[in-house]
């Protein structure tokens, strides 16, 4: 018996035109949480996909449970005790939660019929064991992104695997659920399960992980025990240089009210929301999952039907029926749901970047200017790609997100609403995006920022509004920011 449950050696993976992995290794011990870190596009997800048979490695060896393996399909990996929570969720939206959990392995009544009652009970058992509070009969499409993420986590755990891979599992969870996930992880770990944990959130690594392996540009940089390493050292390993500042917040003058929202109601999750936004301000929205922050912003942007309330810009009432109206009124929006509402997967980076700004390129479209702008904006935030003609679906998750940020910035809105702007983005690029947002505010524009990352929102916002189940429960000035106070408002007590 080797001390490792999994050893990957000299793994190489080539895509047409790109060498994503250039001979990396990974040694995972049972009963440990192993962090896998690196910048966007370093090859973390690719390595995991090679392990579970979604991709096939070009060369290298994988030793799992003392035998050499090379899984052809995910099914095979699951049967052998390796399950994975994917970075990009792909639930079957039209089916129920329990059907999603047991997809492809439903309990059968006989050789033909699915035993729905048992399936429902199994889901209930699983959820109560993990302390998840979601109705198994609810349709998947009615869940919030973070609830979907919890379902996905429950599903991965339900395989009783020896290795659970988690690819940015917390990117759409809020603080409380992260705590919840960490409890689950510790339980699994104590049972001897090995966990491979991919995340860009430093504090999580130090809280939950035992070992860490770092990749850079598809190459192995080093492996350390977390207790022997400092945050700065880790960042230097990842980025290859030292980072000046995480939250480059520049104080700038707060001007007149640019946007005023009065008594806004939309659906169940936006109840009489009122707030003001000033020029030169970054207004943070904090809250737990289901607090209605994204819903409020979607309502302002014309993606949801507003049932009550008024929106004023510069004192003039706006009538926004669709995103087209919002954009022509100078409001920009970066969605939190990158895959469903953000990217057009089968189009190039270039086409994705300019999608909101097509109007500015005339007819016939000025292709030279389009390419110039794409180069400029994608360069600014460091999108890592062989060419801007690459299909966006071939980029790593973080790089896709960067392209969406570029799209929002290129459109040059007066009011920019960003919903989880740095989800899945590496530390270096995160700082870059923060400074771009600061810059926008400095130009007398205004930014609304929803973020579930406490340090981010506390570091960047001038003022913060806290929501709880569709109500605004608190408003804090920068001097008053305090994690406990925010949590108090967010939980509505």
């Amino acid at each position, binding site marked *: 018996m080797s001390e490792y449950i999994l050893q990957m050696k000299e793994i190489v993976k080539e895509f047409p035109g790109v060498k994503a992995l250039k001979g990396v290794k990974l040694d995972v011990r049972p009963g440990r949480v192993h962090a896998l870190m690196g910048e966007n596009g370093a090859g973390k997800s690719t390595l995991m996909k090679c392990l579970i048979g979604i991709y096939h490695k070009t060369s290298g060896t994988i030793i799992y449970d003392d035998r050499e393996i090379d899984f052809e399909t995910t099914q095979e990996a699951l049967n052998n005790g390796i399950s994975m929570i994917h970075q990009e969720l792909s639930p079957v939206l039209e089916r129920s939660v329990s059907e999603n959990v047991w997809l492809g392995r439903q309990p059968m009544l006989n050789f033909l019929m699915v035993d729905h009652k048992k399936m429902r009970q199994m889901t209930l058992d699983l959820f109560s064991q993990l302390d998840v509070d979601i109705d198994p009969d609810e349709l998947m499409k009615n869940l919030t992104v973070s609830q979907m993420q919890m379902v996905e986590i429950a599903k991965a755990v339900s395989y009783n695997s020896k290795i659970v891979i988690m690819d940015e599992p917390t990117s759409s969870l809020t603080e409380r659920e992260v705590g919840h996930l960490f409890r689950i992880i510790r339980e699994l770990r104590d049972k001897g399960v090995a966990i491979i944990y991919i995340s860009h959130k430093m504090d999580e690594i130090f809280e939950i992980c035992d070992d860490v392996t770092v990749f850079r540009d598809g190459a192995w940089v080093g492996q350390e025990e977390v207790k022997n390493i400092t945050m700065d050292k880790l960042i230097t390993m990842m980025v290859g240089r030292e980072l000046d500042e995480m939250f480059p917040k520049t104080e700038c003058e707060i001007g007149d009210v640019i946007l005023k929202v009065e008594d806004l109601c939309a659906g169940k999750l936006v109840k009489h929301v009122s707030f003001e936004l000033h020029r030169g301000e970054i207004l943070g929205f904090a809250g737990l999952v289901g607090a209605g922050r994204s819903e409020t912003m979607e309502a302002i*942007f014309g*993606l949801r039907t507003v049932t009550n309330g008024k929106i004023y810009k510069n004192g003039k009432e706006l009538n926004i029926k*669709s*995103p*087209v109206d*919002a*954009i022509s009124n100078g409001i920009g*929006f970066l*969605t939190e749901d990158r895959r*469903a*509402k*953000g*990217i*057009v*997967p*089968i*189009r190039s980076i270039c*086409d994705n970047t*300019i*999608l*909101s700004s*097509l*109007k500015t*390129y005339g*007819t*016939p*479209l000025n*292709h030279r200017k389009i390419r110039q702008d794409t180069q400029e904006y994608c360069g600014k935030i460091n999108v890592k790609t062989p060419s801007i003609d690459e299909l966006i679906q*071939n980029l790593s998750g973080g790089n896709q997100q960067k392209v969406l940020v570029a*799209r929002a910035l290129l*459109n040059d809105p007066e009011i920019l609403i960003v919903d989880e702007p740095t989800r899945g983005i590496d530390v270096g690029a995160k700082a870059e995006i923060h400074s771009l947002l600061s810059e926008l505010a400095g130009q007398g524009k205004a930014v609304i920022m929803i973020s579930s990352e406490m340090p981010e929102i506390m570091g960047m916002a001038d003022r913060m509004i806290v929501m709880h189940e569709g109500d605004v429960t608190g408003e804090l000035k920068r001097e008053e920011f305090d994690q406990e106070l925010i949590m108090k408002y967010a939980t509505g007590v």
Partner: protein
Amino acid sequence: MDKFKKFCKNNTIWVVLIGFFILAAILSPNFLTWTNIKSVLMTESIIGILATGIMWCILSKGTDLSAGSMVALSSCIIASLTQLESYSMRMYPNLNMPIILAVLITLLVGAVVGAFNGCCVAYLKVPAFIATLGTQLICRAAAQIYTNAYPVPELKPGLKFLGQGMVFGVIPVLVLIFAIMLCISGFMLNFTRFGKNVFAIGGNDQAARVAGINVEFNQMCVFIFSSVCAALGGVLLAARSGVGNSAFGQSYELDAIAAATVGGTSQTGGVAKITGVIAGVLILGIVKNIMLLIGINAYWQNIVKGAIIIFAVVIDMRKNARKN
């Protein structure tokens, strides 16, 4: 050698087209005659014009099954408006309309039908397959009612010129019009905002909406364009055959969809190439022609056609599968 292989891989469809062309030339000495080639081009031009329109529908994740019966309806309308004044049984005995106006009216009818399709799909959220299936029945019946299901003959020479005439004595007008439509379509696809919008809608309609694209309006435009193309096809078919007929255009929409599909327009939306449509139209045209020339019976022709379509989609899917 490697370069050649790569070239073949990236231009599979043209390689296949050349292959069929050579095969046809070997199988039948009559294939390479100018008369034959001209006739193939003229026949396929009409299908081709339909295909350029339908390509847009497929690109935006829809389809247009009404194109064939739109051909019938518009052939009847244009014919009824351009009958010879000397013909005693004219539908409108006192009418004397300039041909250009008659064509415009017919295209306008096409636009109205397209707008109806577009409305159903974009605003009422009827699946395109169902909406256009309904319009297919409606258009065919409208043509039959309009003409009592009799052919409408004796058309003015000015109109017939569109379908039978030659420019500079060599280029059929019909083929020229097809070329113009291809250029227009290609231009819209690659150089206008509309083209980019439709690509985005086909690729991910929700993302397109969030990015500030008016999804419904653009879908509407797509269906209007497709139906106008079909109406133009009807005008040209009437011009070519010298009659309008409510039985025209049977299953033309399927041929057009097939041509667009063979040309690499993906049924999952978001992928299309105008050069692909040209190649698709020509491949199916040549295959039809070879079988005619070497005297294979009509039933076998359809079997071969069906096989080619499925084969084209299999290749397309495999290309996608390998990428992931």
